[in-house]
């Protein structure tokens, strides 16, 4: 061996040893942080824990660490958290048949928390169950699966025959779609696509969790009290990206305290994290005394006031435009907590989202950015609308900043000449109440957070004709807006997105502007996520999809 070769070999050995040592150190360090109880708190629970039914960001964060789908959003911080990776499937399948067929190979050796193996039959049963339990998005997300039409008509007998086909021998599941869907993997990666055992009851599980595959399992859940999560004894890490092992041994999610009390409990170290937004009057104190406990992250979300375009007074476009011009978005931002925590927005899409192109006509200097309300124009439009003196009731829920936003909106409407009043109703029912046309809601305060990073999740879901279901509690197009021309553009763009995402995103930007011009809403602002954590909570990991990842933080 020459000296040079010896040096070369030694250097390589040294590097390898250092790498090994570093890896060992990281593992050892990680091991040091294993254990303890993570204490979470929220003012209220978020209803059922049935993954095929629950549609709340609060419990999707829980399901993110308890359940798995065929694919998953990466469990990491930053932009990568929007990436879809294989989870219970061994790989992301290549599209076949022009994007209408996908063959997933199921990962072997993964077990549910009851000890049973995950099989292709479980996958088929899960997708049948989506229809059997009337999943909120069954008709809008999963209607592309062959056989979905029959399932939507008669959910109880849903088989998805020819749509989702299991092959036990090959350990595969094949999905056949009626048309290509560029967002199909995103839809599979949300908790609606979480795989549950084939023998899971085809009804709302309520407070009884289904066996699941993640590192944690829900051992008890009382919506009036708390939810306890413990380690799943059958979990073994198969993909760090898709479902990494957790640090804490137990997660105790307490329900009931008011946000004021939640802040105090975190300051005192009695809780580690709060779901609710901290009250704005506590923010200066939190920022000055506990700056290291505050984490601010951008959100793809909007706060908006949907106006019912089918009943007076907002069936009049001028009246809707007047509200948009009169709305002082800076005031709304101040109510939310100030410019560090929200940015004014006039559009359907939040800033930075795929397809977003800055556009704001409802400001003193129309262009790309909101600067100030234009009351002169608003009042002129109001006069032209002939709606002065019309009674209007604003419906807001009773949580967080919503009552204050409702009060502010009432003030704006009264300034315009409406006779506005505020009706604050429980957050448990407000969201469904404002959707049902039978309640004749004229205007309300609402929010929308992305389900997945695609413009259609805002535009198609919230403002397409297909999302408007008169007389139903599940009519997410709260405005009842249905423009056949725009709808045709949306449908055309959904097809474009399958082959050319860039062109589709450019088109979404145009559609967004068209919708803004029609003013079915008065968009107020895009919020940011403020997480206030205890001094002992470290390794804060924030996913764009599901926010703080409970399994990745440690408390010791």
């Amino acid at each position, binding site marked *: 061996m020459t000296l040079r070769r010896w040096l070369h070999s030694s250097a390589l050995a040294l590097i390898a040893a250092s790498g090994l040592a570093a890896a060992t150190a990281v593992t050892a360090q990680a091991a040091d942080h294993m254990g303890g109880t993570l204490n979470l708190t929220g003012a209220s629970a978020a209803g059922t824990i049935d993954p095929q039914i629950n549609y709340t960001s609060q419990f999707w964060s829980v399901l993110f660490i308890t359940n798995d789908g065929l694919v998953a959003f990466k469990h990491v911080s930053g932009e990568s958290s929007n990436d879809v990776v294989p989870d219970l499937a061994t790989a992301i399948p290549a599209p076949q048949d022009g994007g209408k067929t996908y063959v997933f190979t199921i990962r072997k050796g993964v077990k549910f928390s009851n000890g049973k193996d995950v099989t292709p039959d479980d996958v088929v049963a899960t997708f049948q169950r989506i229809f059997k339990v009337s999943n909120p998005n069954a008709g809008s997300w999963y209607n592309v699966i062959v056989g979905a039409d029959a399932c939507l008509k008669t959910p109880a007998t849903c088989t998805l025959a020819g749509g989702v086909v299991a092959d036990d021998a090959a350990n595969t599941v094949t999905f056949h779609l009626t048309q290509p869907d560029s967002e199909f993997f995103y839809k599979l990666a949300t908790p609606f696509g979480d795989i549950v055992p084939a023998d899971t009851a085809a009804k709302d599980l309520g407070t009884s969790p289904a066996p699941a595959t993640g590192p944690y399992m829900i051992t008890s859940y009382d919506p009036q009290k708390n939810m306890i999560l413990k380690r799943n004894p059958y979990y073994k890490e198969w993909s760090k990206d898709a479902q990494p092992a957790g640090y804490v041994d137990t997660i105790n999610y307490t329900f009931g305290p008011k946000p*004021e009390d939640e802040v105090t409990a975190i300051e005192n170290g009695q809780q580690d994290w709060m779901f609710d937004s901290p*009250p*704005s*009057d*506590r*923010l*200066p*104190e*939190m*920022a*000055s005394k506990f*700056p290291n406990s*505050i984490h*601010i992250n951008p959100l793809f979300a909007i706060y908006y006031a949907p106006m019912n375009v089918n009943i007076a007074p907002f069936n009049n476009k001028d009246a809707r435009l007047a509200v948009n011009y009169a709305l*002082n978005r*800076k*005031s709304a931002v*101040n*109510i939310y*907590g*100030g*410019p*560090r*925590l929200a940015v004014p927005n006039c559009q359907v899409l939040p800033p930075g989202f795929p397809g977003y192109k800055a556009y704001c006509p409802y400001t003193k200097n129309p262009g790309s950015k909101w600067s100030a309300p234009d009351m002169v124009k608003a009042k002129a439009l109001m006069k032209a609308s002939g709606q002065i003196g019309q009674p209007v009731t604003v419906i807001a829920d*009773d949580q967080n900043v919503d009552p*204050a936003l409702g*009060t*502010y909106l*009432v*003030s*704006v409407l*009264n*300034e315009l000449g409406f006779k*506005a*009043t*505020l*009706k*604050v*109703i429980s957050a448990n029912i407000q969201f469904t109440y404002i959707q049902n046309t039978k309640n004749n809601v004229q205007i309300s305060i609402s929010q929308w957070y992305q389900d997945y990073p695609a413009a259609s999740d805002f535009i198609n879901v919230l403002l397409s004709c297909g999302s408007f279901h008169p007389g139903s509690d599940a009519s997410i197009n709260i405005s009842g807006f249905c423009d056949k021309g725009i709808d045709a553009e949306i449908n055309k763009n959904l097809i474009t997105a399958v082959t050319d995402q860039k062109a589709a995103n450019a088109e979404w930007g145009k559609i967004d502007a068209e919708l803004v011009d029609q003013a079915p809403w008065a968009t107020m602002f895009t919020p940011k996520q*403020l997480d206030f954590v205890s001094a002992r909570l470290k390794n804060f990991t924030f996913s764009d999809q599901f926010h703080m990842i409970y399994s990745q933080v440690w408390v010791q």
Partner: protein
Amino acid sequence: MSDATTDATLPKTAAAETPEGPWRVALRKLFRDRTAVGAIIVLVLIVLACCAAPLYAKYVSQSDPFQSNLDGSITLDGNSVDIMQADTAGLGLGVTPIGPTWHGQYFFGADNQGRDVAARMLYGGQNSLLISFFATVVTLVLAAIIGTIAGFIGGLTDTVLARLLDVLWAFPVYLLAISLSIVFISKGIQIGPFTIPSNSLILPIMIIGIVYVPYVARPIRGQVMSLTRSDFVLAARCLGVPSFRILVRDILPNVTTTLIVFAPLMMALNMLTESALSFLSIGVQPPNASWGTIILDGEDLLYTQPMVAIAPGLAIIITVLALNFLGDGVRDAFDPRAKLRVKKD
């Protein structure tokens, strides 16, 4: 000897011997009670201040207390000051309303909508006083009718009415008021062509008025039963005086003093109940205000601007105390069994 002196003194003697009416005696007793007089003065000042709310808003506060003012500013000691003040230290989080200025504008500071709390308190006081007053009227009128009918007629009528009162009495008063409020304030009331909207003040007036009826009706019933068996009523019956006449001429005047004694005490109770309901968002509905709703507005500002909750709380305490002191005075003055020393002129 002339009789002129004697003649001249006759009318004087007659006047001195004419007994004072019971009302006059009671009022004289009342106005000799310094605590009661102090309470009356305080209440009159509060009522006058609340009546002057529009003037205060226009000329002193110079703001509309029902319009949000989140982007406004005022001039204070020559400097322009934002009403909603963004935190500039540290991470720069949060926006806090201006605190008490102790000047004309924003004397007690602003709420989380940037509205002048002092001006809202005066408007809110109008509603609090109005509701507690008219709810008291409802309570007393209903209690008088039910108590008198039950006590005077007796028999089956008394049994039915007394049991109805018992049923109403059995409910904790706040629980009953909250339940009724939740039912009616969510949708209002529609009876035939008549509609009471959910934000009408009539709803809290009626709800609060009704829940306290048993508290007054039962003593009234007992008093009427006692009066019905009294000698002067029995004498009247023996003389063949019609029952209705006995009721109007002999029973009701005696009951009236009891109702008067109850009035200020009930008004104090009603004010507390109204504040509690409004604090729970099931009393006075926005954009109207009452002292209870202003306390609710201040709940979210307890850490930074506690005056928003403290000021209306103090207003309630002062008014309720004044009403209670007045109630004590009225009771001492009107209750013939009360032992109050009255100096002779």
